[in-house]
């Protein structure tokens, strides 16, 4: 059987692929959907898709790229199946009563919630950039969009985040390295 032979030749072990890439896949789904349960469901779908297509995977590296791409697609699809508006509304992201003079310990959660309020395309661009550390060209390949568009999304999203953080009393100059 040709398909079995290809799996044998590459020596790909599905269980090992799951263990190796589960954090990456889950995190893409989690940070995009901002819903742990839904992220787990989507992540499982991604791996089951890999299992169904295992014979077409040529190497470990290929599997990683495949998983990332499908995680992105499935997360976006899942987000669209929900209501159009993001699950986290800007109003839900708390504003401090006064200007923050020291580092906000909840900053990480604030940022994650702000990311969740972005429209789906720039949201996923941000996840791939800052979770996966992908360069804009790599993001462009995964999301099948021009590099210039990726960079544009990054710039506008960062500007938007700075503005939202400033409105919440976090001084802008703090964000300049």
């Amino acid at each position: 059987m040709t398909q079995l032979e290809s799996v044998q030749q590459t020596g790909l072990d599905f269980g090992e692929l799951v263990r190796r890439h589960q954090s990456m896949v889950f995190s893409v789904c989690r940070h995009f959907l901002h819903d742990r349960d839904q992220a787990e469901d989507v992540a499982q779908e991604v791996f089951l898709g890999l299992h169904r297509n295992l014979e077409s995977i040529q190497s470990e590296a290929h599997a990683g790229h495949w998983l990332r791409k499908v995680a992105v697609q499935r997360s976006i699809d899942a987000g669209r199946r929900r209501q159009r508006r993001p699950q986290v509304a800007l109003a839900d992201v708390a504003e401090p009563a006064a200007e923050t003079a020291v580092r906000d310990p909840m900053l990480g959660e604030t940022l994650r919630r702000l990311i969740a309020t972005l429209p789906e395309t720039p949201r996923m661009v941000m996840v791939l950039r800052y979770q996966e550390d992908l360069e804009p060209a790599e993001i462009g390949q995964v999301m099948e969009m021009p590099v210039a568009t990726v960079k544009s999304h990054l710039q506008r999203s960062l500007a938007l985040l700075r503005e939202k953080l400033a409105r919440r009393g976090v001084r802008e100059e703090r964000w300049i390295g």
Partner: protein
Amino acid sequence: MKTWRTLTLALGLAAALSAQQFKFNLDHLAAKASDTVDLSLNGATLQFAAKFLDSKDPDESKVKKLIAGLDGIYIRTFEFKRAGEWTEADLEVIRKQLRSPEWSRIVGVKSSQDGETDEIYMRNENKKITGLAILAAEPKEITVVHIAGPVDLDSLAELGGHLGIPKVEIGKQK
């Protein structure tokens, strides 16, 4: 979820079950199950089937090697639409029989989170393996596998990666 059809041997293939080393006693679950699998293949049936396995097919060739010398394979699987259709007492009926001196439990895992119980027993006679029993129970499914004869557990696990089963790395047996 994959639907299992009820399969029973027909055409006289289900001969005497004398090779069975313990009784399943699970027929009462069939009435409650949404799907069942019932496979009873004694030694004669296995040797007959072996003649029709293709040695050139890698999967069938492995199975052909595995069944050489076996006295029988007996499998019952019950799937239920909801949890709570089977009880520990149902499993205990089988476990009691596997507490005889010839049998020893080599694996026993219970997960309260998933409600899952998995056990593997080996039968030893004169320092030789003469049987294998697997009990796998989840809230909505029970599977009992009994292989009578000199079965190689590692070879059985090695079938993972073939027969449409994802290959899982084999850990050391306890």
